[in-house]
């Protein structure tokens, strides 16, 4: 454990040093990601300006939902997205060899090798939106509620991470996974704009159980607005547990059947 923390610290240090080698590259993402976020907000404003309730949620709750999804997405972008995203290329090129031969978890190293501080402003902006949403929804802020909300955000970040690993682990078994990644981004785009409360029937099965993007921001917001039922809690915990298992099996199975690349 202590070794892993030291490795993580060194990876973060190296990443900062790497980014600081290029001055424009270091400061550029702050502006680029910030601008993208503003554009995203404008799209949301346009969509929700004339809508009072969506899936039973009022305007304030919708703002909380948008802020929460942005927060989870921003944490993903800062911490592990770029590292995880490089996995298929490393499998195809055989570069994975170098990760497998080092006495540290290849997944840990791969995930944290490309942290992206350029997306940090997104986290701050998301927090601002959440605070604004809480004010708009006239929420009574209590420590227990905030802690419960944070617990779900962390858990959903893990679920998000696992979904990314699952999609990218398929590269161990298939030559091209570009279409899978397209499916992933289409689901994300949809669920970023619609809370899980709007899904019914087969769509609910898909977005709650098979590709559980529908619960990622919905459950934390439910906990914040006091709509989290025991069934919601059990379902969310079960989904995270099951997807943790799937991720482990798929990753380990992938490593076992990894055939490297011809040199």
């Amino acid at each position, binding site marked *: 454990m202590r*070794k892993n923390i*030291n*490795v993580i*610290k*060194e*990876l973060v*240090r*190296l990443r900062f*040093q*790497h980014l600081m*080698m*290029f001055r424009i590259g270091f400061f550029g993402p702050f502006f680029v990601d910030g601008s993208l976020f503003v554009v995203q907000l404008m799209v949301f404003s346009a969509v929700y300006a004339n809508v009072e309730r969506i899936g039973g949620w009022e305007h304030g709750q919708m703002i909380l939902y948008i802020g929460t999804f942005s927060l989870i997405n921003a944490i993903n972008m800062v911490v592990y997205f770029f590292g995880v995203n490089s996995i298929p290329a490393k499998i195809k090129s*055989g*570069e994975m*060899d*170098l990760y*497998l*031969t*080092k*006495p*540290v978890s290849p997944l840990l190293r791969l995930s944290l090798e490309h942290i992206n501080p350029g997306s940090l402003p997104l986290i701050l902006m998301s927090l601002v939106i959440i605070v604004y949403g809480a004010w708009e929804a006239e929420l009574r802020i209590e420590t227990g509620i905030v802690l419960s909300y944070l617990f779900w955000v962390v858990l959903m970040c893990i679920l998000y991470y696992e979904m990314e690993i699952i999609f990218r682990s398929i590269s161990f078994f298939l030559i091209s996974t570009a279409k899978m990644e397209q499916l992933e981004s289409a689901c994300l785009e949809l669920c970023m704009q619609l809370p899980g409360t709007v899904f019914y029937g087969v769509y609910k099965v898909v977005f709650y159980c098979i590709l559980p993007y529908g619960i990622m921001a919905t459950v934390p917001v439910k906990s914040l607005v006091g709509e989290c039922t025991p069934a919601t809690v059990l379902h969310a915990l079960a989904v995270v547990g099951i997807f943790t298992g799937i991720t482990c099996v798929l990753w380990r199975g992938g*490593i*076992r*059947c*990894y*055939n*490297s690349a011809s*040199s």
Partner: protein
Amino acid sequence: MNTQKIIETKDLTKTYRRFQKKEGLRGSIQGLIKREYEEKTAVNSVSLTVSEGEFVGLIGPNGAGKTTLIKMLTGIIAPTGGSIDVLGYYPNDLKNAFKKQYAVVMGQKSQLFMELTVNDTLRLFKEIYEIPEADYRDSREYFAELFGVKDLMNVQVRTLSLGERMKMELIVALLHSPRVLFLDEPTIGLDAVASKQIRKFLKEINHDRGTTILLTSHYMEDIRTLCDRTVVINHGSKIYDGGTEELFGRYQRNKRITAVFDRPPYRREVEVPKEQVNDALHELMQYEPKDITIAEDEIGVVVERIYREGEQQNA
């Protein structure tokens, strides 16, 4: 020399399944419905034993199975059949305790961070291998001194020459004092001077630190200079395992004699079997040559002979 066996394989085999697509659009459509696969045996029943402290060369033509064998020994890929034991472990279990005891350098894959300095990369490896600060500093100093790269440790890797970069790769690999070092084409693309330097360092590391080294190379100069023992692999099978000099002695059968004269034909070149050199020289001397040189068979010819005849003998 310590004779403890640290690598042992028995009938080690690796087969791959590859899709065979028939030509053209029709073949592509057929491939969608019913696929035909062929089994490709990359490594075929290779039994090998390496003792601690040995310097073993692994040679073979392209696609012979050398790199696949190295990848199985380091645990990167799992064997299809046979048994394998490296340092008491089954490599593909990928246990950290096992990975701490070896290092692998692949000539075509770099483990350095190109935009940063070697010292930055070394820091990460210090944490990965849990090397105490004092040991880390000692090792870094020792290798920087040995490889003559003290002034380059704080230079961006991208700006280093290929030879300098390979020295850095070796420093990174050796930092944690591995018991076994796997080298896959470490001198690929290097000029004669850089290759010679790398060979000198490898010899010192093997001799002074007792590191067991398994080296694959297409350059016979590497193998002849460094390895007391050579394993030849062709089409996935081991066709020779023994002394390097013995191998070259067996296949280096001819000598090339070049005689220079003052009068026509001015220059004469003959290739004769080793045992007939005396007779040939005796005959040439009758023509009063100005100069005579005797050279070994060209290395390329010898290698070709090793692969061709070794394969026939093995069959």
